[in-house]
């Protein structure tokens, strides 16, 4: 890394915080300037993330890892920020979704409360930090940062159902955070370190008498992440909380379960890699079966839901389950496909959350979908007797775009061609059937069948449910006179969809990238070495160079 840009890694954390401070000092008076700063910061965030990704990828090494020693202390003593391919990918995803949501929110949401923008920025900071940190406790802190902001954002606007959902959301997350701490404490008690890389080094050397404790710590830690990733049966909180959140918040929340997934992926590959001795691949089965049941749960929920908001929530559950199960399989090829899936699913879910609000704004005052479900059974109109004329109706451009965007969301969420959702599911299934590549003979196991079946089934149930809700809520919107949507509201949706479209077209380079990321994950030596060998900048403050073994 060029020295003058060595600090790039810390920017995704510092920038939002700085903006938060500025926005707070700016106060409520200068809204326009505030929202300008807000959007500008989100844009800068994306650009920085892209630059980090570009640099890491440009390295070309299999285990390209950039390490930043916050406070100039050597890795396992101070807190270290690590950007590898996976982190960079998540940063970019955060950047894209964050920018879209920021632009969307600049339309009106800031006006509702002066705190929306600061909280949003804090949320970004938390997400970025969680993706970057290489320290277990710092991870906890960034989890708390992003959760604290998310509490505020979720509750934004208040109202009965929102507060009720928020109460559950907060209670569940507080409990999960407590478990996080318990698990983390046990790991520290056994290993004496908090640096993830250092932990990875020490896990194989844990004496047999301590290993049970180590596993218990890891298990309790995992339960916290399971909860945050909304694994069944710990994920019932998700749908109400996400459904009631305002649109840009829902969009950014689409990322939040992914943080849980990311952490599970990061820690399970780092701590329990194949070189972890007796602890290798610990908990894979739990992840796998938990993930599968989450997919099933999500599919059920999709089938059962009539409202778009709920459907969007359940689609998040499905994606979460898919990712968890894919991680549980523990194969680089499957993980690579899962990473691609993660990108696609997150973009689609974010777009969907933004869309839901636009649609619901237009369709407010419509008949309730529940009544619609009743209607379906009752009448049986003959084709001829329908009163409506056989003359098409005009669809305003904005609505047409929105309709197309909605359709694109449906396609991606349910994995129908030709968009990225299809590529993702295809890749996943191909990888599941041939984890070692097409040429390597491999007998599909029951799990493979189950996984693929659930993938297809969840796709079907997404199709059925989204088309049902879409027809009811999007198409019928066309009957109404033109709605007032602002460009800044429609544009982010289209941008997210376009990003997904780009994913489809550039599937090859993206998959190339995710493959490299996944392979690096399953061979964490590069990560560990890079982190532990990074030297502080020599100078008066830190007596660098004379680093000693712990």
């Amino acid at each position, binding site marked *: 890394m060029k020295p003058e840009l060595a600090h790039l890694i810390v920017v995704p954390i510092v920038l939002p915080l700085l903006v938060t401070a500025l926005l707070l000092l700016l106060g409520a008076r200068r809204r326009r300037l505030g929202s300008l700063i807000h959007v500008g910061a989100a844009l800068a965030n994306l650009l920085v993330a892209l630059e980090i990704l570009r640099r890491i990828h440009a390295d070309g090494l299999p285990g390209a890892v950039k390490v930043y020693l916050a406070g100039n202390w050597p890795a396992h003593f101070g807190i270290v920020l690590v950007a590898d391919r996976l982190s960079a990918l998540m940063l970019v995803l955060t950047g894209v979704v964050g920018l879209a949501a920021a632009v969307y929110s600049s339309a009106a949401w800031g006006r509702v409360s002066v705190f929306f923008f600061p909280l949003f920025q804090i949320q970004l900071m938390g997400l970025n930090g969680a993706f970057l940190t290489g320290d277990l406790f710092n991870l906890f802190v960034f989890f708390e940062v992003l959760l*604290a902001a998310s509490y505020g954002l979720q*509750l934004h606007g208040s109202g*009965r159902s929102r507060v*009720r959902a*928020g*109460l559950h959301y907060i209670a569940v997350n507080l409990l999960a*955070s407590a478990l996080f701490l318990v698990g*983390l*404490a046990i790991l*520290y008690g056994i290993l004496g370190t908090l640096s993830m890389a250092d932990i990875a080094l020490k896990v194989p050397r844990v004496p047999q008498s301590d290993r049970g404790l180590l596993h218990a710590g890891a298990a309790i830690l995992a339960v916290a992440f399971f909860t945050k990733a909304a694994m069944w049966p710990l994920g019932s909180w998700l749908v109400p909380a996400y459904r009631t959140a305002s649109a840009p918040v829902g969009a950014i929340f689409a990322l939040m379960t992914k943080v849980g997934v990311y952490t599970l992926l990061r820690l399970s590959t780092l701590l329990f890699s194949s070189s972890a001795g007796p602890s290798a691949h610990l908990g894979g089965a739990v992840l796998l079966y938990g993930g599968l049941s989450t997919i099933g749960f999500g599919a059920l929920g999709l089938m059962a839901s009539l409202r778009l908001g709920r459907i969007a929530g359940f689609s998040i559950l499905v994606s979460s389950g898919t990712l968890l199960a894919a991680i549980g399989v523990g194969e680089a090829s499957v993980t690579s496909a899962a990473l691609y899936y993660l990108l696609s699913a997150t973009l689609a879910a974010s777009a969907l959350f933004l869309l839901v609000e636009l649609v619901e704004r237009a369709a407010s005052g419509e008949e309730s979908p529940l009544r619609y479900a009743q209607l379906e059974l009752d009448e049986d109109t003959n084709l001829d007797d329908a009163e409506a004329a056989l003359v098409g109706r005009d669809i305003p451009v904005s609505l047409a775009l929105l309709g197309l965007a909605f359709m694109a969301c449906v396609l991606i969420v349910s994995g129908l061609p030709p968009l990225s959702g299809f590529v993702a599911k295809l890749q996943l299934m191909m990888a599941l059937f041939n984890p070692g590549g097409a040429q390597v003979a491999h007998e599909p196991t029951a799990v493979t069948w189950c996984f693929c079946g659930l993938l297809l089934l969840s796709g079907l149930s997404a199709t059925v449910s989204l088309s049902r809700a879409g027809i009811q809520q999007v198409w019928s919107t066309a009957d109404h006179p033109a709605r007032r949507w602002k460009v800044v509201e429609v544009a982010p949706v289209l941008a997210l969809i376009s990003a997904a479209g780009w994913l489809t077209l550039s599937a090859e380079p993206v998959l190339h990238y995710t493959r490299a990321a996944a392979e690096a994950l399953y061979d964490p030596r590069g990560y560990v070495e890079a982190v532990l060998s990074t030297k502080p900048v020599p100078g008066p403050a830190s007596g660098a160079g004379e680093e000693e073994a712990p």
Partner: protein
Amino acid sequence: MEAVLALVIGVLGGAAVWLVLRPRTFQVLLGLALFSYAVNLFIFSMGSLFIGKPPIVAAELAPDLEHYTDPMPQALVLTAIVIGFATTALFLVVLLAARGLSGTDHVDGTKEQR
């Protein structure tokens, strides 16, 4: 003494779990607050506990774990205390808002459901 301390942590945790599973929001709040005591003590007990060996280095003592207690868990607990306080405050306010909006202090916002 270790056994007693472990017992304290267990009792705090058990009482917290009991409260967290209760149907009244205020009980859940108390439970979460108690749980943070338990967790803080739990983290704290991970460091080697010593009496009278605070991690405040003095020139005459060799800076090792013989003469000072482990500062790391303390730093962690300190952060955890503050975060715990913040989240408790938040939960309290949300609880109040929920009580005001739903007219009941049941965690699900529904009337009696015992």
